[in-house]
């Protein structure tokens, strides 16, 4: 860890403490929103592993989120598997599908990569949408129970918090390792990385798999959180939404995507009680973000802080 990281540690600890105290407010609203933010925060960070750190624009990340959600819910309800096994299986299946799809995707670059990730996620969506007997199709797969021992919103909140924190620490460790440095090198210049003897496609594929794994874990949590899974979470606008969360928070900082998820979900919740025109507001937020705050929220504040430090 660098000196700067140590400076942030107390802040991080304080934030974590506050997040852990949320259920003490005894507000169902806060617990609900908190769980939602934690789950989407993990989802956005797993996307950012590709977007911000490896330089791959995945436009089909919803596929792995959805695969995780369906796998966990189906195994628990149809195969009566216990939650722990179903949860691990969801992650594993997410990673496996990311391996299969990613094998083809990493062969392409830029817009073609984005298009192929989109195409694969649409295939997964059609399957979930049309395979009524398995997934319930358009009507969704409903009646997913809370697992044993986690049978209240507060308990599930703490479980989600634990999973998310452990996952984020693991991802952070991976990114700070030589492996993570190679990913950043690939982002900066894939051709030159190839020249220094690194198998770029292999590393991109591994990053894709890790990202798929954590997206699927987030999805598995989301299915239980909602007690149901709908094909909508696989449709392409869902992939666009998590991209927006990531950009909103800031794709060049590790926790930026979590901040983005928090701000977006909070705003949606607030706005929804006043007006049905949330997409309009989201569109305006996104557009002004692109024009005025290209570094996202966290990027904006980092800029401010570093300017203040330079002045005196």
């Amino acid at each position, binding site marked *: 860890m660098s000196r700067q990281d140590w400076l942030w540690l107390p802040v991080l600890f304080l934030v974590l403490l506050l997040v852990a105290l949320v259920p003490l407010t005894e507000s169902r609203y806060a617990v609900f929103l908190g769980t939602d933010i934690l789950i989407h925060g993990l989802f956005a960070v797993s996307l950012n592993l590709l977007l911000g750190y490896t330089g791959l624009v995945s436009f089909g990340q919803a596929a792995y989120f959805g695969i995780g959600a369906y796998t966990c819910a189906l195994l628990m309800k149809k195969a009566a598997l216990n939650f722990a096994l179903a949860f691990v299986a969801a992650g594993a299946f997410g990673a496996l599908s990311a391996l299969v799809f990613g094998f083809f995707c990493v062969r392409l670059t830029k817009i073609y990569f984005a298009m192929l990730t989109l195409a694969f996620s649409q295939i997964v969506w059609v399957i979930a949408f049309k395979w009524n007997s398995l997934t319930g199709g358009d009507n969704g797969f409903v009646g997913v129970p809370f697992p044993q021992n986690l049978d209240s919103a507060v308990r599930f909140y703490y479980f989600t918090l634990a999973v998310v924190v452990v996952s984020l620490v693991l991802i952070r460790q991976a990114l700070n390792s030589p492996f993570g440095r190679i990913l950043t090198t690939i982002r900066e210049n894939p051709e030159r990385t190839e020249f220094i003897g690194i198998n770029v496609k292999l590393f991109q594929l591994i990053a894709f798999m890790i990202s798929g794994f954590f997206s699927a874990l987030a999805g598995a949590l989301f299915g239980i959180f909602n007690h149901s899974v709908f094909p909508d979470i696989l449709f392409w*606008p869902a992939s666009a939404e998590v991209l927006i969360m990531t950009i909103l928070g800031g794709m060049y900082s590790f926790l930026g995507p979590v901040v983005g998820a928090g701000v977006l979900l909070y705003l949606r919740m607030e706005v929804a009680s006043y007006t049905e025109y949330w997409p309009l507001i989201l569109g305006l937020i996104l557009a002004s973000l692109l024009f005025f705050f290209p570094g996202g929220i966290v990027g904006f504040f980092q800029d401010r802080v570093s300017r203040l430090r330079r002045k005196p």
Partner: protein
Amino acid sequence: MNLPDPSFLIIQSLNGLTYAMFLFLIASGLSLIFGVMGVLNFAHGSLYMLGAYLTHQFVSWFIDAPGYFWWAVLLASLGVAALGAFIERFFLRHLYIREELNQLLFTYALVLILSDVAKLIWGTDQFSVSRPAILKGAVEILGQYFPKYNIVIIFLGPLVALLFWFILLRTRWGRTIRAAALDRETLGALGVNVNRLFTVVFFIGAWLAGLGGALVSPISAIVPGMDVEVIINAFIVVVIGGMGSFWGTFLGALILGQVYSLGILILPRLSMVFIYILMVLVLIIRPWGLLGRPLQR
């Protein structure tokens, strides 16, 4: 498996051909904008949707005028084109220096904004426009009836294609546009106003989307959500045919139209899967599309 009546197959195939022509109109605009400016315009489906809504609006205003339908189509498509040029000139232009992702996300922001603006103006009711008097009724083909309007569309599609092929390959304007696709800096250095050229290209691309929406209004319901539905199909057409390739887009639209209309007869539940599998296969085997050329971007 029982083979359906051949005349039914032909009608179904003609339906697919009609659908292909709409897809071609939208996708050719998308492909033109991508080919020249490198911008993947998510809002192209929204422009198509606005074309349909505006046609409905103009038709309800001009209902007593002679030839009102054609005036409505013309005005609606030009209105959409003007909106496209406005967006390019005042917003998108400032994002060219940024990464492609920023342009992509901005056009997605437009999707969100335009869909709600349409809801604010026209509500969530479903609208339809009646066919122009001349083209009401149907023609008998092998004992089955096929609407006259659809036949006109089937001929109109290739006509627009030929017109654009002529403009792009045989006129000075077309040469300039093709040059901009290859190397905009050099073109600028040679004294061409590249900024204005880009606005014009966006105008034309948006006009094609608006025209598609205007012409589809008599045969398809005008509803919120038609933007999101069509844009993915337009993407698939462009990917299959080759991004930036003109005849590729035409071929892609024909393929998609037939897979939809005939695939529904074979495996009704899975006709959509065919399309996506086709898209995946093309991207894996020939990422630059069936008739496209590899891009060095």
